[in-house]
């Protein structure tokens, strides 16, 4: 199941740890060396993850590159990893954006470079771990592991109000995930009650038929944890603060990858584990997504700070992602998954370019700029391409995802789709208005005179993102083709009763081992199988 017998997922997850180990031996003062170690490690991790793309079999519904080793036997915890079309690109994006973040922060981080890079690399471990864990316990470990490097990135290397932002970020996410932890434990015991086996295996849990009342509570706990992460309205207020204070690399990872964990959580856990509650809550979730889309866009329009503007635009864009996923049809889900990637690329890119000007001028306030086009034509051009991708200009990546989402949503809920579509107007307003105020006009602020244009390093940091923006926009088939099977498998999973899922989840075993003997247990939460 692994790639040529190599446990490739383990390699991808833990390669950054090699860099962390090396960095521990790097002297406190040799920041330059620390950067190189981090760049080479993250670059190597990206290269290690690339074969996943080529070896991926887009025909199968099953998890690929699976590794499964018992870990904590008495609790039924396995070290169980696997990849499907939903997570393939999330992992690749994580490994790519980490390289980009390291390279993009090259000259911006001057204090405690070594520790900064350690945090980034640890973060990468946590993020990839979250995406490929098929054991819920393991998932939760990675989920929590991820929080701390991020906390430090914001709290130590952030700007003025960094502590407030860092604590807000941690408290928001921690309190939501605490509820999820309780729910996970409950699921563990429910599963035991139904099957007599203690296991954290997600695939086993998928077959657990919970009473609808129980599903409500479980769903609520999971959904809250993920909704905060995405973030969905009205749980979004940590995001603008976190982004404004975070250093560029932190913002790139936060927007590019961390927000996707929430969406991923809905796909992998909340929706398929609790199909009954899903059906019940879906109209509300669609409603919240649409509110987020419009609300985020409107608030975006009036932000005086570039980073805050981009942060609120994330609220709007992630609303699109969720709308697509909640449509639960081919177009919606594929569009939603593709849009996660697109958002990672374009919003990651936006944070990078804002970081580049911040490095030069030490301000992110839109009013401070104006007329930059004259002196910084390369910067202006690349900035514009990323802005257009974020606006959803057809021919660039954002459009493909957004349009598929709208097609999916329209079939389920016309009103929601139509309201969401109006965001195309608002996105143009807030992004182009910002662009106009920053780049057009005469240079009115003398501090902007002689601001140097991008250097080769900065251009090469943005180059892969620009390349992807055009590629996905013009020829998305390599992406959609790999997402397709897993996406429809996911939809089918949600629409299938848990008791009937076995053949779907284990097609090979289904023939030999027809059905497990039904285990009748005391009533209380689970339907007996």
């Amino acid at each position, binding site marked *: 199941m692994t790639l040529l017998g190599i446990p490739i997922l383990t390699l991808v997850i833990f390669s950054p740890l090699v860099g962390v180990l090396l960095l521990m031996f790097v002297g406190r003062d040799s920041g330059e060396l620390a950067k190189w170690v981090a760049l080479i490690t993250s670059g190597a991790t990206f290269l290690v993850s690339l074969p996943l793309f080529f070896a991926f079999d887009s025909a199968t519904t099953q998890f690929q590159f699976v590794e499964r080793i018992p870990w904590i036997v008495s609790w039924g915890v396995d070290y169980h990893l696997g990849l499907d079309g939903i997570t393939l690109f999330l992992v690749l994006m994580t490994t790519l954006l980490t390289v980009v973040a390291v390279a993009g922060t090259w000259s911006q981080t001057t204090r405690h470079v070594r520790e900064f890079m350690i945090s980034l690399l640890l973060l990468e471990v946590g993020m990839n771990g979250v995406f490929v864990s098929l054991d819920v316990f393991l998932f939760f470990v990675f989920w929590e592991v991820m929080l701390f490097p991020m906390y430090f990135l914001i709290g130590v290397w952030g700007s003025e109000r960094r502590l407030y932002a860092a604590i807000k970020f941690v408290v928001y996410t921690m309190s939501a995930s605490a509820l999820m932890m309780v729910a996970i*434990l409950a699921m563990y015991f429910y599963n035991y*009650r139904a099957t007599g086996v203690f296991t954290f295996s997600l695939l086993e849990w998928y077959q657990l038929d919970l009473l609808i009342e129980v599903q409500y509570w479980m769903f609520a706990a999971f959904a809250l944890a993920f909704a905060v992460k995405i973030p969905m309205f009205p749980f979004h207020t940590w995001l603008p603060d976190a982004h404004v204070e975070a250093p560029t690399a932190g913002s790139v990872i936060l927007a590019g990858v961390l927000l996707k964990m929430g969406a991923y959580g809905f796909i992998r856990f909340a929706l398929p584990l609790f199909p009954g509650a899903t059906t019940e809550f879906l109209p509300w979730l669609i409603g919240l997504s649409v509110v987020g889309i419009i609300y985020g866009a409107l608030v975006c329009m009036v932000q005086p700070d570039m980073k805050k503007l981009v942060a609120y635009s994330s609220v709007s864009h992630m609303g699109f992602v969720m709308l697509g996923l909640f449509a639960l049809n081919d177009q919606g889900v594929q569009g939603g998954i593709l849009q996660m990637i697109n958002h990672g690329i374009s919003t990651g890119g936006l944070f990078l370019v804002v970081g580049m000007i911040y490095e030069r001028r030490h301000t992110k306030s839109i009013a401070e700029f104006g007329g930059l086009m004259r002196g910084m034509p390369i910067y202006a051009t690349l900035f514009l391409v990323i802005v257009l991708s974020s606006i959803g200009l*057809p021919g660039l990546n954002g459009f493909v995802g957004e*349009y598929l989402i709208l097609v999916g949503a329209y079939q389920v809920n016309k009103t929601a789709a139509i309201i969401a579509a109006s965001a195309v107007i608002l996105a143009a307003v807030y992004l*182009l208005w910002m662009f106009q105020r920053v780049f057009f006009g005469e240079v009115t602020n003398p501090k902007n005179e002689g601001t140097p244009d991008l250097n080769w390093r900065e251009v090469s940091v943005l180059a892969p993102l620009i390349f992807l923006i055009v590629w996905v926009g013009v020829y998305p088939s390599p992406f959609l083709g790999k997402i397709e099977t897993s996406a429809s498998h996911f939809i089918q999973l949600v629409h299938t009763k848990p008791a009937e899922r076995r053949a779907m989840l284990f097609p090979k075993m289904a023939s030999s081992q027809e059905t497990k003997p039904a285990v009748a247990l005391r009533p209380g939460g689970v339907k007996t199988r």
Partner: protein
Amino acid sequence: MTTYIWLIPGLPLLGFLVNGLLGRSLGKTFVSVMGPGVIGASFLVSLFTFVEMLDAPGYSLTQHLYTWIQAGDFTIPATLVVDRLSGLYILIITGVGFLIHLYSVGYMGDEDEYAYWRFFCYLNLFVFFMLLLVLGSNFLLLFVGWEGVGLCSYLLIGYYFKKNSAASAAKKAFVVNRIGDFGFIVATLAIFTIFGTLEIAAVNDAASVKLAAGGGAVTAITLLIFLAATGKSAQIPLFVWLPDAMEGPTPVSALIHAATMVTAGLYVVARLSHLFVLAPMTMMVIAIIGAATAFFAATMALAQNDIKRVLAYSTVSQLGYMFMAMGVGAFMVGIFHVMTHAFFKALLFLCSGSVIHAMHHEQDMQKMGGLIRKMPITGWTYVVGALAISGAPLIFAGFFSKDEILWKAFSSPFGHPLFWIVGVITALMTAFYMFRSVSLTFFGKSRIDPQLEHHVHESPWTITLPLVLLAGLAIVGGWVGIPHLLGRSLIPNVLKNYFDGFFAKIPEGIHYGDGLEFGLMAVSTLGALAAMYGAYVLFSRHLPLAGALRDKMRPVYRMLSNKYWIDEIYNLLIVRSIHWISDKVLWRIVDVRIIDGIVNGLAASARNLGGALRLTQNGIVENYAVGIVVGAVFIFWWLLF
């Protein structure tokens, strides 16, 4: 299956890439060859394709490139189609486009500060997207072109980015167009849900099967598409961006904001004629909006002193004319006017550019006059353009297309005599304001700043050659559509035969006699001639009298020159109120006060609670362990029983 159609948009794309990536280093001469060169080559391929298309079965050539988007049963191929409509359009786009590129070599020649290569890079990209718009076989590919031309329009209006007015105009154009795009997106969503495909040909074919004539669905879809058209083609209520778009360099105004992009809305309506005829209500709305736009824009053009603004309002007005034609079901006639308008309006803009170039960027006609002596080629070609747009009879292109529209507005079953009346009044105003502009600019006494005057001279050949060629087209361009009334059996109506059976059929109307048609034509033609002559006399020989008349009608004049304060009204009602709600209510109250208030409040109470609980944290680990066990037991008990 034809294999070279991709070259038609491919060549301009190549020009864009090469000019964009290498233009700066390879220098001006290279760009001057590359920029117009790719468009010229594309024109030749278009011509070749056009001829082949005329022999092809069903008058249609197709080239499938690859599958663009595929998700479930949603498939969008990247396929190009040359049929009779797109075939005509590609000739106009690349033909007129080539002349304008050539012109730009001369016109933009001394542009160094804003980078010459950047201009050609954008202009090539524009042509690429415009070609994609008309060649795309499905709604989404069309939409790529649709948005792409909007982007290029944005970039080119904002070309003089240092001017704040240019930057604002660019953004305004994009945003206003996006309002229309919203309509387009929703319409396509509905179309996909109903038809299961976004291929335009398939939708046209199945329209009468899948949609009930006059039903809610088809009416909604067509109205939404028309909303998109009002954005791109600058109709009421979304016309406000086009006058401001004149901030762009003049060749841009000629190519994008007169000849090609602004007719995209008409293209879409004509392309979907089989859908539109199923929705009589939409047709009526289109005719009314078209007539109203034609009329109001013409009134505004009467009171402009900027030579380009006159032409801008005139464009809006003429586009209204074309929509009126579409609305009364005369799709072919509307497209006929698109074509003749492309010739004479491009000509007029380029002439005005030649003047502006010679006058060192002076655009106020009050500071011109008598220029015909200094710039005879520009002057006389401008007169040709003005005669064409005003409908000077029997020779000039505009006469045939315009009179055909007026006749259809009267005689079509969707028509009404009122449309004819509005159309004729508009035609008279058109003749009047055009000859006002002719006289103020080229005739009468010179009012030019004496210091500037001896610098003014005729433009170089790269500028005048396109003028002469376009002037030729502005004359002969109309001869392909000579109506039966005038041509009888001697001169065939080439265009009518060409489009035979292409557009949706509309029910036969009442048959009026030739006498009536002739009479109406005589009324509008004589009226236009009178208006031309009146304006010429008034503004070239009796300027003080014109001034006195204007002073008498001061309030009206102010209202017209401020375009009925539409911009101010929109700004107050829409822009400011949305901004206010977003800023003062959503952000500062909902986000900061309410949501964050709750969060911070929770945090504060947690801190207080923590302060109380601090007493329990006495460092005795056994106590903690007991607490954890009790808590866990409690949770599981609660969950399990």
